[in-house]
């Protein structure tokens, strides 16, 4: 894969991921008990022998930059190629911020072309899947395509969430529809586009903003050789709270669709050195993922515990995602919640108590706590409530946060505590 480079679009602000993306890019959100979302794409690149990867960042990139570092973890610390971060910059001509996916590429045309790659693989940093991109390259070359899109079948009920692709018998793309209300197409675009570099360069000259609307759709309409390559494995766009939660909990289902225990395709990540999980007397853990560094004396069921989480005796965690170094103190109860890093749930407090908040679906029943949120002893946090980054005792009224309430972020409070 010496002649290919990958561009990973990781700039999204992810408003739909609430407090989880308050201080970090969607790609940098922790996932699956020890990973960050972007690890899946980077590991795919590593295992597919793509040695040159540029990550385009914009929104709250610090956490992502820290995570990537020199790219060592994915064997992307290379003399030639390796990983490179493309953050917006200023030039004499324009104001810099990326206005859309195609604009992000267009502003980096020089960097892309300087790699002299024959093909450019455009990826999204917000998706969870394991894919050998070499299959995509082979299909692309076999059809002498100008562009090849990776597509996957989605059930009728979900088609309005995706860009839908209509193909002919030869696999050639005939139509692209963005989030259609109704469609006969069964294949969704996975946001994975393999371009011949010359074709991409030509397209970027026209100052496009959006990759689908301003680049791909015109190419299809002009009759360029745009093909679709169907991917049959597990793939999930975890860009909404609901899909993020569902994808995490799916990992602890009896037959998960995404296999993390796959020695041939390990997901590589920045792994802090932590001791093995310590299970104390009284611990009860079922249908859960628990990472190194955790210490469990309570009960954990259908949940995901990231490194360093502590669940004290008589505490219960059910149907929840609990990130690094969060502590759930004695007798507390956490149900259907996503707790970000360094959260502290006080003794006998309840997070996710009572009935669901008004509204529909998963989100109304999910309770969220941003980084450093602090739930005092015996406090109650209703379902569907969102505790902003740094929420503290001062935000509780009668030791309670009502169902569906939103506590604003105030990260500085966490520093004062």
């Amino acid at each position, binding site marked *: 894969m010496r002649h290919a480079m990958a561009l990973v679009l990781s700039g999204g602000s992810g408003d739909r991921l609430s407090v989880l993306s308050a201080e970090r890019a969607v790609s940098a959100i922790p996932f*699956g*008990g*020890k990973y960050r979302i972007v690890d899946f794409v980077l590991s795919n690149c590593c295992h597919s022998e793509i040695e040159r990867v540029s990550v385009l960042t914009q929104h709250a990139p610090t956490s992502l930059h820290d995570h990537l570092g020199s790219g060592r973890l994915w064997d992307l610390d290379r003399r030639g190629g390796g990983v490179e971060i493309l953050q917006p910059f200023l030039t004499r001509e324009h104001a810099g911020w990326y206005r859309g996916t195609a604009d992000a590429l267009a502003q980096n045309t020089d960097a892309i072309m300087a790699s002299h790659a024959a093909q450019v693989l455009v990826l999204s940093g917000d998706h969870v899947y394991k894919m050998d991109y070499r299959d995509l390259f082979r299909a692309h070359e076999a059809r002498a395509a100008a562009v090849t899109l990776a597509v996957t079948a989605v059930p009728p009920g979900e088609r309005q969430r995706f860009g839908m692709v209509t193909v002919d018998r030869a696999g050639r793309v005939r139509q692209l529809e963005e989030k259609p209300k109704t469609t006969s197409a069964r294949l969704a675009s996975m946001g994975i586009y393999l371009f011949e570099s010359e074709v991409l360069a030509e397209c970027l000259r026209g100052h496009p903003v959006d990759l689908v609307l301003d680049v791909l759709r015109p190419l299809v309409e002009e009759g360029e050789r745009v093909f679709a390559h169907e991917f049959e494995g597990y793939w999930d766009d975890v860009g909404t709270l609901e899909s993020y939660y569902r994808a995490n909990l799916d990992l*602890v289902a*009896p037959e998960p669709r995404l296999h*993390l*225990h796959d020695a041939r395709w*390990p*997901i*590589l*990540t920045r*792994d802090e*050195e*932590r*001791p*093995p*999980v*310590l*299970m*104390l*007397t*009284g*611990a*009860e*853990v*079922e*249908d*859960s*993922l*628990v*990472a*190194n*560094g955790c*210490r469990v004396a309570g009960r*954990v069921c259908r949940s*995901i*515990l*990231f490194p360093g989480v502590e669940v004290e005796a008589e505490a219960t965690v059910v149907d929840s995602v609990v990130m690094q170094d969060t502590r759930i103190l004695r007798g507390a109860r956490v149900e259907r919640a996503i707790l970000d890093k360094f959260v502290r749930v006080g003794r006998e407090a309840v997070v996710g108590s009572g009935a669901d908040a008004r509204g529909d679906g998963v989100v109304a029943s999910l309770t969220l706590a941003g980084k450093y949120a602090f739930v005092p002893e015996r406090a109650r946090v209703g379902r569907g409530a969102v505790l902003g980054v740094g929420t503290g005792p001062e935000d509780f009224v009668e030791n309670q946060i009502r169902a569906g309430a939103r506590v604003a972020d105030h990260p500085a409070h966490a520093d004062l505590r």
Partner: protein
Amino acid sequence: MSGRYAFVLAGGLGTRLCLLSERRAKPAVPFGGKYRIIDFTLSNCVNSGIYDVGVLTQYHPTSLHRHIGIGRPWDLDRTRGGVQLLQPSLGSVTSDWYQGTADAIYRNLVHLRPRRAEHVLVLSGDHVYKMNYNLLYAFHQANHASATVAVTEVSEEAVQSFGILETDARGRVVGFQEKPRRAQSRLASMGVYLFDRAAFTQWLVEDAERSDSRHDFGRDLLPRLVERGEAVYAYRFQGYWQDVGTLDSYYDTNLALLSDQPPLDLRDPEWVIHTQSADRPPVRFEAGGRAERSLIANGCRVAGRVVRSVLFPGVTVLRGATVTDSILMHDTTVGKGAAIDRAILDKEVVVGAGGRIGWGEASTPGRACPEHLSNGLLVVGKGAHLPEQVTVGRNTRIGAHVTVDDFSGDVPAGGVIHGPDPEH
């Protein structure tokens, strides 16, 4: 403090660890659910700011060499300094197999030549402890010592296993006996020595020229220095230190990690023990899985019951299986309904469904190494495959890489199943 250099002696045979060190040097023996014994010494070095380390290997070094690699996990992959593996070689006047610990260093003095270090730290890769070597340097300099030996207090019964030092009120060593039957002092050498470079070089050369020396620090060099009144001091280390030299002490030291307040805190963010660890997913607990009072590393899958045990990465405990008071190393699988009790299973062991491993009375000592297999523990070597429904008694030894065909039925207490010849 720049220009500090440490030699780590990692050639040890570790014969008393039975099967565990049959095909790997003692420092490479897995410990504590994800570490190797040498990780403690290497982590102590980097945590003390010593980033220039030579590791001397000799006996079965492959596993150790692979583990250390270029030293990345310890930040020892450096442009200057870092870690260097020093295996015996041919080609110069001083080259040959290492005869003793002092001889091993003598043959590697060449590595000291280009370095500025004024002191030489000599460590052993065989011990489990967390120690800040800066305090040793400070003590050495404050006492204007030529050599400083770190010591720790051991029990009266243990004195016969160590080098025992007698000191005067100021900490100066006035007596040094290697593994005495009985001793006045209970201060044992930890195998941690700090020397003044110039004196050290001279002493090593002198020792090498003596035909009556076994070229060992503990048996020859240090007693001789003490005898002739060199400024040898003992630095009293107060923390936890374990030799893990025997199967029993290895087992006890591992299981001690399971208490609420373990004597060795692996969770201390100020003194992280670094190791080479493969990328493994978090531990997966499945329905029916249950674990109490146990250490379980990433990559494990638990669908059975685990009590008071240490599970290294990638261990699978299938439904209905129970593991009690045991140590299971990397990628070992316990089949459905199998029961393991008081056993040490090396890496990649497969226990067939319904097997009972560690069963019945514990009074028959093992036919293989009876001195190590007499307290009920049993050991299974790397890659052994145990048949379904087999019962294996206590104090047994199942060799590495045995296959189900090597069993002709149950294995009685104290029994042995020999694996293929370890040298082939």
